[in-house]
């Protein structure tokens, strides 16, 4: 046991360092992103990153659920939507309502609903759980559409105020960027602490086998529900931030396709790798933009292909297949394998150099 704790501690330390480096990088992005002329870049990095940040909240939680607890969910758009609608309804009905409280309540309400549905549904396994969560997502979408008095129906909710915390207004993308990514980094910090702890070990046991975990005296149902609720809270907070970012929400933003996008982000980023969620979000948010930008950068792509918006999706679908074929465990694993490969190679070199020095003596 002591040994396991030691491993966890070193793992934690390593992840903290990565988090620190990543934070430094992420928080400097808005300063240099504006310097690249739009005529070359053909994308709005800050805007995309803000959107990515809101999605990241949901995906980090979902990664804990899918990658560590081994439970699939094809309905996380529902919790994202519940968070968005909670804060949108509160803040538009009551002008005095503090927006930051709306975001917190968005997470809470999503968590409570997650608990209510999670307790019964998590008894299902594999594809049956996938179906049940997919159904829940569809039901939530229909309720967003049908409960007109509350949600504004298909027309959605307009004029959602921008976030402000104790008089500090986050009314531009530039300001919002720092807030949202700070939230994302906090969630990452929390995830690292969960994974590198007793809970994390229990989860890993659960992932490899329910029965074995039960035999080890782990209350699997409790852990599954706990992680499910946590992922719902994360998604709810992400959704609430999304609502305050766009100032407008409608049911079309929370469909089955968003749930699929979330799970794709988890898997392509690296299921069961702490950083997988983040990598997946950023990769899949920027991929369509990069594909769209290609004809501007490489004039070889004939214009007839780029018109009528069809070639992006062809390439997108193909890339999804190729990435999964060559990195079936996700990009984050591919990256860490690459770095460890480099490390061992570099390490060998260092050893050899020091060995030579020694010989020289």
């Amino acid at each position: 046991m002591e040994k396991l704790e030691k491993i966890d501690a070193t793992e934690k330390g390593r992840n903290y360092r990565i988090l620190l480096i990543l934070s430094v990088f992420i928080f400097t992005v808005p300063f240099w992103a504006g310097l690249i002329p739009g005529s070359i870049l053909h994308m709005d990095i800050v805007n995309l990153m803000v959107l990515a940040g809101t999605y990241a909240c949901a995906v980090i939680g979902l990664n804990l659920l899918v990658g560590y607890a081994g439970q699939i969910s094809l309905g996380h758009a529902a919790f994202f939507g519940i968070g968005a609608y909670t804060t949108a309804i509160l803040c538009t009905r009551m002008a005095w309502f503090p927006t930051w409280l709306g975001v917190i309540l968005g997470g809470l309400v999503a968590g409570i609903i997650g608990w209510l549905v999670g307790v019964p549904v998590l008894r299902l396994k594999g594809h049956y759980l996938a179906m049940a969560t997919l159904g829940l997502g569809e039901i939530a979408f229909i309720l967003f559409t049908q409960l007109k008095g509350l949600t504004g129906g298909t027309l959605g909710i307009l004029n959602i105020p921008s976030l402000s915390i104790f008089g500090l207004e986050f009314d531009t993308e530039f300001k919002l960027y720092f807030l949202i990514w700070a939230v994302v980094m906090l969630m990452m910090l929390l995830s690292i602490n969960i994974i590198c702890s007793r809970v994390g070990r229990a989860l890993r046991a659960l992932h490899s086998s329910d029965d074995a975990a039960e035999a080890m005296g782990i209350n699997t149902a409790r852990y599954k529900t706990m992680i499910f609720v946590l992922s719902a809270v994360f998604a709810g907070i992400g959704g609430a931030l999304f609502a305050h970012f766009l100032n407008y929400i409608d049911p079309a933003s929370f469909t089955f396709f968003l749930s699929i996008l979330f799970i794709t982000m988890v898997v392509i980023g690296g299921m069961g790798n702490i950083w997988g969620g983040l990598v997946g979000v950023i990769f899949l948010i920027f991929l369509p933009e990069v594909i769209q930008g290609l004809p501007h950068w490489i004039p070889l792509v004939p214009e007839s292909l780029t018109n009528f918006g069809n070639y992006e999706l062809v390439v997108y679908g193909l890339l999804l297949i190729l990435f999964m074929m060559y990195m079936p465990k996700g990009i984050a694993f591919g990256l860490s394998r690459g770095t460890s490969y480099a490390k061992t190679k570099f390490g060998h070199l260092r050893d050899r150099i020091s060995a030579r020095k020694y010989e020289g003596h």
Partner: protein
Amino acid sequence: MRKVVFRGMKADEKRNRVLWCSIAVVALVIALALSLKGSKGLQWVISGLTVGSIYALVAMGFSIIYASTRVINFAQGEFSMLGGMLMYTFSSQVGLPAWLSFILAVTVVTALGAGFERAVIHRMEGASVVALIIVTIGFSIFIRAVAKWIWGTDPVKIAAFLGEEPLRFLGASIVPQSFWVFGFTAVAVILVFLFFNRTLPGKGMRAAAGNPDAASLVGVSTSTSSLLAWTMAAALGAAAGIIIAPINFAAYSFGVMLGLKGFAAAILGGLGSAPGAVVGGLILGVLEIMTAGAFPSGYKDAVAFLIIILVLLVRPQGLLGKPEGEKV
């Protein structure tokens, strides 16, 4: 060891019982609809069974691939969409006779399905099930985008095989195409069931999914099994898409809805079971029409999904599915 065998036998027996129970439930629902609403109820049942057969055909495609490889193919709906659109191209645009167009369309889609298996799925041996699911999602996005490029976004019409004049009886009406759908579904389920339960290759394929080592002892490799399953599922999907197109038109975007409902039907009936796919499809179809007729229609899909979830909570492996622990 004895205990395991015993449990297996019991499960088999139980499955048979459940099969009859489900059939009884379907019959009961139909009788209820008839007695309560008279000719209106009959109409619901007829339309519901037509829609349900469509779902059942797609669900069977899911089940074939799942039974042999444990993969959920989220591109299954796209096979049906492609079948319908290719039928339109060959029969309406090129002007070939219907039977030839049918054969050509099914051949093209089957080749695509088999090709995808060889080019991608086959090379991903050992990848997690979720990774394989994401690959099929990527494939469905790709097919949809290419279909949109070729055929545009407008829905197209495919002429019914036997005219469009509805037949009327007992105050209800039915379009002739429905008989094609019923007949095709019945033949398909019987063939698929017999193949997987009565023939050696079929049994081998099922074994290949459960235990690759044992299967290779019997002489069935997981590789052949997977290829065969994808080929069959693509062919069935394409044929289904062609048969149902005259009822509901065809468009590049229809695969999503078919896939979603087909998946729901396959799960409801129990993954990997052909009769289960049909039972699940029919229940889902009748349920949809009835809830649209009896509840505020905006909630009809919500009611259908709620019932599926409730059924799963009572029977976590679907109506006719075999209980087994699975991992993501």
